[in-house]
């Protein structure tokens, strides 16, 4: 028997040798093509304090780096990190000069003249000129480009943008002109007070015409078909794994950029992200509710608030939701406080209006929009039941069944289950939850193929208009069938006659929000999003923006 055991041992050894040999081979295989990546990671682990290398994660890959085609947060984040527009959002989201040194506005607010700096260059050495903006903006509205954000952002703002997108006018008629290499003349369709902050948005970034045309269809598909004029530039872009940015030495403000390198990996699972953070491989990881419980007391715990609002959209083409009392009952039945404290548990705030907290302030009193208008919805279960009974009487029904379109992420699943149970507290109401991918939700929103929908909206520029404008009759993103002449008039007035009267204009918005939420109960606000992070405390001065690129790494550094 002894001999038998011995034989077995030999077999095991032989097998493990074989395994080792196999794996050894694999080692050299991957070492050659992906070796540099891993090497970097290990280096920074050892002496992370002094090396100016930031290791980050994204939950999704970059869908596109083409300025005109970008539509989502990931794309805008990395466009913002590699590009400078006319302005850049600085501290407290105030636009600070970037490619534009300054600008003049005509008295009627229509003609804007931007004076560009002469020392800005693209990473291929070409100077950044006024023509780059003209080309980029024309490309964005050109129907042949098929850009989604181009006509959406420029339309109604820049002269003729909508007509060009509809194919009614040639692109050359767009209200933007380079009077010389460093002077950009912009003609607006009407006075737009928030235009300055708009120019910091991704869609308004410049493009180097000769480079883009030369690259053709390959433009923005690889690190070397990309051009940067901002603080960082892409050195490696491996679609699925991640990407690496390096400091752009040719950047006009390179002296103020301290980070040498930013490595981004694509990680979908929160638990994986937290594990990577705990192993010191990344400098920041976002947390879900459970992890907040565990890490709330950690020194690295940080909450970042955003002016992004989540709400229940109610389709008024649905017979039940067409009833105002039914909508008000829905607004009132939901307990938002418990929801943000337990389900989200990440610093999100219960929303009580259509405009988020800490987004804009009154032009005179400097008071926050939310503080002036106060809580427009509150939780009151008894009153909700009463309203609901009235609604049922008016509709002549005892029971009602409505669909609910939710998201498909883990948090939204809990959220959906919670909202279902909250709404079903209304006697005789049955809610059928359908979780669909984000893309499908957008499609069904467009087709108005929903009853209730858990929806979110982040600002495109810093002005209440970005949240309120969408609810006007037949607005492109309205999709609730809501129409109120009074509301439309207030918004239109704010956009036209009052464009240059900041105070009255603001009053209009305040009034409009009351009509929208309190009187007409168009949407049921849920919460204002915040994100909880584990954030390496040695990373300093990362800018946080309310729109466009969520984070600005231009001034960031590691201690």
């Amino acid at each position: 028997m002894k001999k038998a055991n011995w034989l077995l041992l030999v077999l095991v050894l032989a097998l493990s040798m074989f395994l080792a040999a196999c794996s050894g081979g694999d080692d050299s295989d991957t070492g050659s093509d992906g070796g540099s990546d891993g090497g970097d990671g290990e280096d920074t682990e050892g002496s992370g304090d002094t090396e100016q290398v930031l290791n980050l994660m994204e939950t999704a890959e970059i869908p596109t780096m083409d300025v005109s085609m970008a539509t989502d947060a990931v794309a805008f984040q990395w466009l913002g990190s590699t590009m400078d527009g006319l302005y850049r959002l600085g501290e407290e989201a105030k636009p600070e000069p970037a490619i534009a040194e300054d600008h003049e506005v005509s008295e009627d607010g229509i003609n804007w003249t931007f004076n560009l700096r002469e020392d800005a260059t693209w990473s291929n050495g070409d100077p950044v000129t006024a023509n780059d903006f003209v080309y980029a903006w024309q490309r964005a509205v050109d129907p042949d480009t098929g850009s989604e954000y181009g006509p959406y952002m420029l339309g109604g703002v820049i002269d003729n943008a909508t007509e060009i997108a509809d194919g009614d006018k040639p692109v050359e008629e767009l209200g933007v002109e380079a009077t010389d290499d460093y002077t950009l003349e912009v003609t607006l369709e009407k006075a737009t007070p928030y235009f300055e902050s708009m120019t910091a948005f991704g869609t308004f970034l410049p493009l180097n015409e000769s480079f883009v045309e030369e690259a053709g269809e390959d433009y923005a598909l690889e690190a070397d078909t990309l051009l940067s004029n901002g603080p960082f530039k892409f050195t490696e872009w491996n679609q699925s794994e991640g990407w690496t940015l390096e400091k752009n030495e040719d950047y006009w403000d390179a002296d103020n950029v301290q980070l040498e390198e930013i490595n981004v990996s694509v990680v979908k699972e929160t638990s994986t992200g937290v594990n990577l953070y705990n192993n010191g491989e990344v400098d920041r990881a976002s947390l879900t509710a459970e992890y907040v419980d565990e890490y709330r007391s950690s020194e690295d715990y940080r909450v970042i608030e955003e002016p992004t609002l989540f709400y229940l959209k109610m389709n008024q083409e649905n017979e039940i939701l067409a009833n105002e009392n039914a909508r008000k009952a829905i607004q009132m039945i939901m307990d938002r406080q418990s929801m943000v404290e337990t389900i989200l548990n990440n610093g999100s705030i219960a929303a009580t209006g259509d405009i988020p907290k800490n987004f804009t302030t009154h032009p005179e009193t400097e008071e926050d929009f939310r503080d002036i208008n106060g809580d427009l919805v509150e939780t009151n279960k008894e009153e909700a039941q009463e309203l609901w009974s009235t609604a049922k009487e008016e509709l002549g029904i005892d029971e009602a069944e409505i669909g609910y379109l939710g998201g498909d992420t883990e948090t939204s699943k809990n959220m959906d289950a919670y909202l279902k149970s909250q709404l079903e507290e209304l006697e005789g109401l049955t809610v059928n939850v359908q979780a669909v991918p984000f893309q499908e939700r957008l499609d069904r929103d467009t087709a108005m193929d929903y009853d209730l929908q858990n929806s979110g909206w982040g600002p495109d520029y810093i002005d209440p208009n970005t949240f309120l404008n969408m609810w006007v009759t037949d607005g492109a993103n309205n999709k609730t069938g809501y129409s109120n002449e009074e509301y439309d008039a207030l918004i239109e007035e704010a956009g036209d006659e009052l464009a240059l009267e900041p105070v009255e204009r603001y009053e209009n918005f305040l009034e409009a929000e009351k009509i929208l939420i309190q009187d007409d109960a168009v949407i049921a606000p849920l919460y204002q999003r915040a994100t909880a992070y584990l954030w390496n405390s040695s990373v300093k001065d990362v800018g946080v923006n309310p729109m466009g690129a969520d984070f600005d790494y231009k001034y960031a550094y590691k201690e």
Partner: protein
Amino acid sequence: MDNHKPNKDLFVPVDTREDDSEKISRPSLSFWQDSFIRLRKNVGAMIGLVVLILLIVMAAIGPSLNEYDQFEQDLSRAKMPPKIEGMGWLGMDGTLSTVQTNDSLDQAETNALMRFNNDEDYIETTVLNDGSNGEPAEVEAVYDVYAAKDMEEQNFWFGTDGLGRDLFTRAWEGTRISLYIAFLAAAIDMVIGVAYGGISAYYGGRVDNYMQRIIEVLIGVPNLVIVILMILILEPGILSITIALTITGWISMARIVRGQILKLKNQEFVLASRTLGAPDGRILRKHLIPNVLSLIIINTMFTIPSAIFFEAFLSFIGLGLPTPLASLGTLVEDGFQSLQIYPHILFFPALIISLIMIAFNMLADGLRDAFDPKMRE
């Protein structure tokens, strides 16, 4: 020496009757009785069977064993750890604990308390390492959640989930739904597979040829992908998941049945029956199917756990049952997110799913041995 010689008178001829030699001395056992005897002797299979019966009974009565409803939410009691009276030694005493490490002892203690909202009345801290040996200080805090929430009267045997739903009730409801999906899928697989395989083999010739060509094409279709595509179209639900699982699931059954029937159909007893004028249907039903039944049962036994597995897998990639319905898959997926912080949410459904799989596999193995005449002693 004479004493050693036995007396001849001691030997009397046995009274043999003609028919005695034909008599069967052991009790006559049908194939099924025989198999059952062998199954009963198989310890593993019997354990599997008992576990399975227990799980099915729990799935039936479990949800009504306590006062909680599977959908009843209460955020104030969210994420409660499991507590069973008298089972504290198993760790199910309704407390949460954390170990905080910091360079300074005070800070570690503060952090440990902060982890549980500084609810000091219900926190017991123990210093594991005061940091005097040069290593960072470590403080362990144990938090009595039930006492803190003034719920000492209540017991959540498996704890609660992120919405304060009782996991005990949900786990057994989930077991019920998962088993339901699995049994239904297996039954449909069986019916289609047996019919298809039976017809193909029995009629043979051109029919068999065509039917086999179809199978050969279908066998190349990876079921995983087809199931996912079907779910995308049908929208997740109990029935649609079942249907998706059966779309390609019946093929292996059809192949097994066909192979077996091909072997059987030329045997003498079938020929005899046919000669006597038995119609096709009767021959299939009375002679062929019973003889492949053991194979059908074994195959079904393996189909059930794989259906449960598949359901869990679909949940994991976000194509599971719509919320708030519970299946073992959705529960496991839900728990996976908080595996490191609240392991109890994952533990119980994962345990049940594993037990079901183990039980079915052991029982199926046992059945295979039991039905195998070679194993006869």
